[in-house]
C-alpha cells in the first residue's frame, strides 16, 4: 500500500474542511467525467438499436449506413427518423436515443421556421438551437470538453517549461539568470492576446497549433515565482549537503529543490486553468481561436451578442455555464491555497 505523507494527509483534510472548494472540486470533476462520456449523453447516434432480432450499439465505432436498418440510403442512419419509422411499424424493433439526440455539428432546419429556435422539450432541444440550427446543449458540452482539456494540457506544458527555466535561473544565477531575465521581460511586454491574434490570422489554428502558440507565449507566468523560490532554497544547507554527495545540478534541482517549492506551484495551478479557459474563449469569441465548426463557448458567446434579444437562451446558457465553471475553479484555487498555508498550523496571540 502507498503510504501518504502525514503532512499531505493534513493538507487534504484541511482542503476537505473548506466546503466551498471541496464541493466545487467534486462538481467540476463530475462535469469533466460527464463531458468525457459526452457521446453517451449528447449524440445523434442511438445508444441501442434492435432491428430484426439483432442488437446494434452505434455510439462508438464506424458509421452504420441506413441500408442496414432497411432504409433506402447509404449514408449514416438518421436515428431520430429511424425511431419514428420503427414506432410506426410496430414490429418490435426499437431505438434508444441519448437524452439529447443531437450532435454538435448537425444543423436542423424546420420547414416553417428559421433558427435560432427556442428551447423545446418536445424536440429535445433543451437549450434551444443556435443561428444555424445546431443544438446549444450539445455545443455547450463539447465546447466545455475542448476548453477544459485545452486548458489542462496548456497548463502542463507551460509549467514544465516555466518551472524548469525558473529553477535553473534561480539555481545557476549569474549570466544564465541575467539573459533569461531580459528575455522574459521582452516576452512579458508582448501583448499576449494580440500576438496570438496576429499569428492565427496568418495560419488557421488547429487544436495543436493553437496550443503550441499559447505555450510559446504563456510559459513566462510561473517563471518569476519559481526563480525566487529556488533562489531561497539553494542557499539552504541540504543543497550543499547534496552537492557534497556528488549530486549533479539537474539532480539537485529535480529531486531536492522542486519538491520543496511544489506548494507554490500547486497554488497557482487552478488560477492558470481558469486563465486558460478564458483565453481560449476570448480567442474563439474574436474568431481567432479554433476554426469553426469546432464547438466552443467563445463562438456561442459571439452568437449571443449577435442575437441578444431575439435568442436570449444562447447567451443565458453559455454565460451561466462560464460563470459556474470559472467560479468553481476559483473556489478550488482558494481552498488549495488555504490548505497549503502554513500560518494555519501556528498562530501567535
Amino acid at each position, binding site marked *: 500500500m502507498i*503510504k501518504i*505523507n502525514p*503532512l499531505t494527509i493534513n493538507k487534504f483534510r484541511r482542503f476537505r474542511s473548506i466546503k466551498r472548494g471541496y464541493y466545487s472540486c467534486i462538481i467540476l470533476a463530475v462535469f469533466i467525467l460527464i463531458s468525457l462520456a459526452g457521446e453517451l449523453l449528447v449524440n445523434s447516434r442511438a445508444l441501442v438499436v434492435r432491428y430484426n432480432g439483432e442488437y446494434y450499439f452505434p455510439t462508438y465505432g464506424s458509421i452504420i449506413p441506413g441500408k442496414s436498418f432497411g432504409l433506402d440510403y447509404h449514408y449514416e442512419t438518421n436515428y431520430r427518423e429511424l425511431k419514428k419509422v420503427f414506432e410506426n411499424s410496430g414490429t418490435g424493433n426499437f431505438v434508444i436515443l441519448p437524452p439529447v439526440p443531437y450532435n454538435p455539428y448537425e444543423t436542423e432546419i424546420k420547414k416553417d421556421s428559421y433558427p435560432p429556435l427556442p428551447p423545446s422539450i418536445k424536440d429535445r432541444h433543451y437549450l434551444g438551437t443556435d443561428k444555424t440550427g445546431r443544438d446549444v446543449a450539445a455545443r455547450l458540452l463539447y465546447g466545455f470538453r475542448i476548453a477544459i482539456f485545452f486548458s489542462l494540457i496548456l497548463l502542463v506544458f507551460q509549467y514544465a517549461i516555466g518551472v524548469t527555466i525558473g529553477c535553473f535561473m534561480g539555481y545557476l544565477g*549569474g549570466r544564465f539568470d541575467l539573459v533569461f531575465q531580459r528575455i522574459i521581460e521582452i516576452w512579458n511586454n508582448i501583448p499576449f492576446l494580440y500576438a496570438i491574434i496576429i499569428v492565427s490570422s496568418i495560419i488557421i489554428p488547429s487544436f495543436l497549433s493553437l496550443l503550441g502558440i499559447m505555450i510559446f507565449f504563456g510559459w513566462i507566468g510561473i517563471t518569476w515565482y519559481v526563480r525566487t523560490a529556488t533562489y531561497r532554497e539553494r542557499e*539552504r*544547507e*541540504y543543497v*550543499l*549537503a*547534496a*552537492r*557534497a*554527495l*556528488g*549530486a*549533479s545540478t539537474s*539532480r539537485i534541482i529535480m*529531486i*531536492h529543490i522542486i*519538491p*520543496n517549492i511544489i506548494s507554490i506551484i500547486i497554488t497557482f495551478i487552478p488560477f492558470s486553468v481558469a486563465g486558460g479557459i478564458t483565453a481560449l474563449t476570448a480567442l474563439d469569441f474574436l474568431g481567432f481561436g479554433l476554426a469553426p465548426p469546432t464547438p466552443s463557448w467563445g463562438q456561442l458567446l459571439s452568437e449571443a451578442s449577435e442575437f441578444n434579444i431575439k435568442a436570449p437562451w444562447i447567451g443565458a446558457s453559455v454565460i451561466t455555464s462560464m460563470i459556474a465553471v470559472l467560479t468553481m475553479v476559483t473556489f478550488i484555487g482558494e481552498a488549495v491555497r488555504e490548505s497549503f498555508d502554513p500560518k494555519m498550523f501556528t498562530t501567535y496571540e
Partner: protein
Amino acid sequence: MDSGKDIILKVKNFSAGFMKDGEVYSAVDRISFNLKKGETLGIVGESGCGKSVTALSIMRLLPVPSGKYMSGEIIYNDRNLLDLSPEEMRLIRGDSIAMIFQEPMTALNPVKKIGKQISEVFEIHRSSLSRREMERETLSLLEKVGISDPEQRMNEYPHQLSGGMRQRVMIAIALACKPSILIADEPTTALDVTIQAQILDLIKELQRESGMSVIFITHDLGVISQLCDNVIVMYAGRMAEKAPVDELFKNPLHPYTAGLLDSIPKFEYKRKTRLKSIEGMVPSITDYPEGCRFRNRCTFAFEPCALNHPEETEVSENHRVNCYKYGG
C-alpha cells in the same frame, strides 16, 4: 615521516579566498599538511580562522563565483583535486571523500524520507545496484550508526527525528560508499553534550572498523583531545602550530596555542578565579596586520614579527610551529 605510501591526502601551500568588490581576500593562506591512512587530523581554531574553508576546498565546494582557489595543490590519489573537471570532482564527492555538516537540522532535505536520502548516494555512485539491494544497504547502514527500529525510521521524515538521530543519519549518508576520507565540519556543535559524546564514539568506532582517515574540524579543544591523532591550530587563515595531540597539550609552543590552552578552566582553580583569555579580537579578513597576524595580541611580539609572517619551523620531530620565537 612525511613521505611514504600511507599518505592519502596532501595539501601543499594551499591558499583560497573570497572576492569582494573586485578584491580577493584570502581566507586560507599557504597551509600545508598531510593526512595519513587511518589518521584523525584535527583542525582547531576560532570562528573565521579558515578551518571550514579548508574543509570545503578539499571537497571543492567553495561558493562560486565569489570563492577563489588561489594557489597550491590538494593531492589525492596522485591527482590534484583543484585541476579536475567538475564532472570528475562530482564522482569523488560522496564516494571517496565524504563530508558531515554542522547542522543536522538543515542538512537533510525536509520533504524527503530518511531512507530515500540515504539510498540517493547509491543512486549516484552505485547505480548498478538494484532497488532491493539499495534498500538492504540502507537498512544495514542505519543499524550500523545505531538507529533503533531502522525499518520504521526509513519511512520517516527528518522532522520526526531528534537532533542526534539526524546527525546519525548524516553520518550514515557520508559512510554509504565507504569513503577513504571523511571530513567532519563541527559535527557535534549543534548537539548537547551527551549526544555529542555518543556521536564522537560512533565516529571513532566506525573509523576503527573501516580504516578511513578523518579530518575533524572543531573549535572545541576537548573534542580534539578525545578523538584526534594530530592537530593543526589555525589562526586568521594561517597555520600556527602542527603537532601530535599529546605533544600539543603537553608542550604548546605557539603563543596562540598556549593562550588557548590557558583559557580552559582547570580543576586546580579556586572558585571565582577569573578565566584567562587572549587579549584583543581576531582581526577581520579585510584588515589583517602586516607580518605575523597574531602579533597585535601576542605577548612575545618583537621586531621581526612586524615584517613578515613566520615560516614553518620544525622544533622537534612532528612538531612544527610558525613563530619567530622559535627561529621562523
